[in-house]
């Protein structure tokens, strides 16, 4: 009924779900730093959600260790459409310094389509905000595509 409104609001209230697949917590702290008063991601409606069911944007940090790979795939499957995946920092995209180790199955792209990747070994909160904002816009396109 209110399709135009629904499509618009898809980009205006993106809820994040953060998966830590073996990260050194550098990126995790930076992500949470975005919600602090200084950077305040909540201005754009970003909110950390507790379960993948409530999530729109899944933020993955860490070099996809073999332990967390299976759980990562299952959790990503449980997120309802339309969804975006944002890789935080260099680890998810390439495994960073841990590349080639026995327990790292790094590039996240093998397991899901990464919409936005934010580079930086601990990217700055502004960069994360920029990445999330871009992901929110992608969400809107996905919602319109899904709606047609």
């Amino acid at each position, binding site marked *: *009924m*209110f*399709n135009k409104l*629904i499509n618009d609001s898809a980009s205006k209230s993106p809820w994040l779900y953060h998966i830590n697949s073996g990260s050194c917590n550098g990126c995790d702290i930076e992500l949470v730093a975005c919600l602090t008063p200084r950077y305040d991601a909540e201005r754009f409606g970003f909110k950390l959600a507790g*379960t*993948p*069911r409530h999530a729109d944007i899944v933020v993955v940090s860490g070099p996809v260790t073999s332990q*967390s790979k*299976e*759980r*990562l*795939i*299952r*959790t990503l*499957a*449980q997120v*309802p*459409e339309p969804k975006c995946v944002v890789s935080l920092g260099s680890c998810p995209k390439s495994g960073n310094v841990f590349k080639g180790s026995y327990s790292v199955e790094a590039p996240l792209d093998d397991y899901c389509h990464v919409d936005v990747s934010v580079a930086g070994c601990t990217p700055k909160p502004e960069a994360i905000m920029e990445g999330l904002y871009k992901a929110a816009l992608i969400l809107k396109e996905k919602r319109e595509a*899904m*709606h047609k």
Partner: protein
Amino acid sequence: MIQHFPVLAVMLLFLGAFCVEIFGSNNAGIRNTIAMLAATIALVLIYALIKPVMIDGEIISYWMGNWAPVSGYAIGIGYEVDALSLFFALLVVTTFWLSGVYSMSYMAKDHHLGHYYTLYLMLSGSVLGLVMTGDIFNMFVMIEIMTFASVALTAFRNENEGTLEAGFKYLVIGSMGSSFTLTGIALIYGQCHTLNMAQISAQLCTGMTPTTIMAFALIVAGFGVKSYIVPFHTPAADAYMVAPTSVSMIFSGMVNKAGVYGMIRVLYIIFRAMDKSSVQMLVVIFGAVTMFIGVTMALAQHDFKRLLAFHSISQIGYVITAIGLGTALGITGGLFHAMNHTLFKGLLFLTAGAVLYATGTTNLDKLGGLSKKMPKTCICFLIGAFSISGLPPFNGFVSKWLVYQATYTKAVETGNFVYAIVTVVALIVSVMTLASFIKVTQAVFFGQLPAELKKTQEVPASMLVPMYLMSALCVLCGIFYPIVNKYLLHPATEATLNVTNYIDKMMGDGYAAMMGAQNIEVAPVQFSYWNPIVWLILFVIIFVAAFLVITGSKSSRGQVLNPGVKYDPKYATFFSGEEELFSQVGGSDLFWGFKTDWKGYYKVLEGLHSGIVTDYAGWTVMATAIITVCMFIFMR
């Protein structure tokens, strides 16, 4: 011709019991037909009485062997069916008919069914007789038969765990109660030289001598034991749990109602003690204590039926509190709650029986996720659970609504703060009832299905039919309350308060005036109740509005895969990414916060329920002593 119906019904049931014992002990066909025939005819006879008694307001009085009273003295045994008796008779008849239908398939697997149906018909006949008799000793004999039948039925499945023990305790406490009643009756007879209730109440108008006060206290204690108020409630909790479910449904629907009927008859009509505020206070305190202890014990239970048993005790507490108030609104609320309790508690026991029949256990920690396997039972259970916790569209809400109004109006009129406390306790108990039924819902019906219960099927139709009937009644009584009030509750309340009419009908006109009996003047029940029909339209309209909002958004809906297949992770339950494993949260690990805060209270309470027969007997004697002492102080 209408005169003979009450006795005919009772005699028919006893005759049925006798025939079942002779013809049906080995042939199932004959046995079932006789039992159901007797039950149905009794039902029809009692329902036929509604027109004359309830609508025309006439009281049926019937003298056994036509021994009418000679020169003002009642000689024979008289049956007197006024609106109050008929109200309870209807409850009794409906309950045992439904239990009969239910037990057709529920008891099929048991053996010795010949004895079962004999006892079942004896129990029904005795309670029906108790409710309709006008003679006090006849009432005592009916109580005895009721106690025997219930003890035998409790211990029916004697190979199960704990049945013999429950039966023995029930017998000990029950027969102590009956002995008190018998002593009371003896003292009454010593004073009034008659056994007819109407004549006794007429003679007692002049004043209460010490013997009559002692008799009054003992009879009240005796009926207290029969209606399982707190100090006497322990055998009930055990008996309901171990008895076959169709029997525990009769217990909670009929047997404790008989106790309540006895209390009303004694308090209001025979001794007319309810105009004294101190007696009212005593009864209300007993009711409130029963309410509170019943529900707190229920919260700590691990067994489905034992939880329901403690809830019956707490709901009877509601009824006793409402009746103890002495106001017309209180009696209406109490009677309506008794009726509703029979309906939703019967329904809940039937669902418990269905769960027992399908899975073989009622242990809350071993069950879970049955709503997928037994959807119909789950719906009936939810209706029962919501009506017992008093959620608006159902009948529990209306009667609790009346009870709160009654207690708080009483508190304001008499300015007595205790009634305000009782209102608060009643409301808190209602929330705790809701809590314990949420616990059962999560532990038995929702939550996850354990592996060994994979093969459970829905129960056969003949068990479902009574459930549907009762849930329909639950909903209808809630919504069409004004009709129920006009035809059932109003006449019953009038009958309770209008003692002179009761005496005149029985002993011939003018008798009451001659003896100087007068009624308790009570303000008529005045309240307006929001029109349920509007309520219904409200509900439907908004339901449609909400539905539009949901479907309007054209959201695609994930399907539910059949549970057999390896689940696509998208539809698997979220276990923080783990593979789905069985971890049922239910039964004893709910309400953790509440239990830790009340640890001290629960340690004491569970200590008191020690399970030793002599302790229970001790309490019975102690409580009777308390009642007697209070009566002597109050009735002076």
